[in-house]
């Protein structure tokens, strides 16, 4: 009976790999050079076998093709992203998340790419519990690090905001607030530390510019 399960698992794996390759070829058709399609197919097939998301790889290849980036540079970027996805998945599993969701792995990969360590990614994932989405938390951390906030300060700011009971929207708006602080002349680290101090003295769930429910005007907002 064990042989049957092994056979079925192998068949299912082959089927998933074939589906991934077909999906990649369809999505990338006429968007990137054939060499990029072949490379991404291989990477996607390998990613599926290891339980990693494929969509970020496809998106990165499409982005490179749209921007007119040379094929070899697109391939290098997709390979680097695949390696970060694997590293992020490993970090998340080591933090106790047995089967991390695709968007969480992707968020972890971006955080690693922005300079956070595997331990910091794992710590953020552990800290980000309901109602916070670990994937979004990691993306916010990645953006903060990309703005120039040191990784350790980024970890402390986001983790302390979550521990203080801040809403997910407060976490999402951190990069804009850091950027605003930088516009006033603060360094990224100073801006982040200022936000951390302010959060420690503010009642949970009440950001300074919170709009009471029902009073928000549905006007578009600007990035």
């Amino acid at each position, binding site marked *: *009976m064990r*042989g*049957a399960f092994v*056979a*079925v698992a192998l*068949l*299912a794996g082959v*089927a*998933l790999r*074939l*589906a991934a390759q*077909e*999906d990649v070829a*369809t*999505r990338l058709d006429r968007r990137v050079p054939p060499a990029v399609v072949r490379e991404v197919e291989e990477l996607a097939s390998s990613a599926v076998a290891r339980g990693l998301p494929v969509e970020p790889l496809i*998106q*990165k290849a*499409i*982005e490179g*093709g*749209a*921007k*007119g*980036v040379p094929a070899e*540079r*697109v391939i290098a*970027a997709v390979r*680097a*992203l695949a390696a970060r996805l694997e590293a992020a998945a490993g970090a998340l599993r080591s933090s106790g998340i047995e089967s991390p969701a695709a968007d969480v792995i992707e968020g972890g990969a*971006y955080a690693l*790419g*922005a300079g956070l360590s595997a331990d910091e990614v794992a710590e953020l994932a552990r800290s980000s519990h309901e109602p916070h989405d670990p994937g*979004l938390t990691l*993306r*916010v951390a990645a*953006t903060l690090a*990309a*703005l120039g906030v040191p990784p350790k300060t980024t970890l402390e700011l986001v983790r302390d905001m979550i521990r203080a009971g801040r*809403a*997910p*929207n407060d976490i*999402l*708006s951190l*990069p*804009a607030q*850091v*950027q605003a602080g930088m516009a006033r002349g603060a360094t990224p680290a100073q801006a982040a530390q200022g936000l951390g101090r302010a959060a420690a003295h503010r009642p949970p769930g009440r*950001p300074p*510019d*919170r*709009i009471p*429910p029902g*009073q*928000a005007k*549905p*006007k*578009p*907002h*600007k*990035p």
Partner: protein
Amino acid sequence: MSEPFHPLVKRLLDGELSLSELPPELVAQGAEALRLLGAVDRAPVSLPAALEARVMVEVRRRARSRLRRAWRWFVEPLDVEVRLRVRPWAVWGGALAAAAALAFLLARPTASPDGARSVEAAARDSVSVRFVLFAPSAKHVSVAGTFNQWDRDAAPLMRAGASGVWTLTLTLPVGQHQYAFVVDGERWVADPAAPGVDDGFGRQNSVVAVIAQGARTL
């Protein structure tokens, strides 16, 4: 049609009983049966030699016809006996493999280019976002990002009078998205008003965080 003989009379004809052993009411029937049997002409029949020769010629003629034999092979029913010896796990394995193949066929990507969520879900979790770029010398500006498959033609901005300000409002799903402006169809420009991240190709992508209605965004 004559009346059939009694079973005891048939045994009499087979030599298993004698006439005296029959019951009295069957003695007459038995005697009649013996008379009829004795009246049969048992003299040997001799066939003419030519008949046998004619029969054998006809048999050989039919046997030599390849077309006839082929036709008979094709149309006549055959007795085919198939014996299978299988193990139960092989049966289950085959069934599950068929199920996996069916799942593979059903899981193939659809014609949707994005493979995206349903329209209803997208409408429920989407927020209007306004993109603005100051580019007074530009002839054409668009925005491309993870929300439109980096399609430089999908979302053109509109020039707001002669001020050099280009704007566009898009409905985006809640979450974090990366994007860049495309000026005159070839120059990719990060949004100076938004946080930027490395795009992996040596340039910068801008980041927008779209959160639920009533709260701030980037």
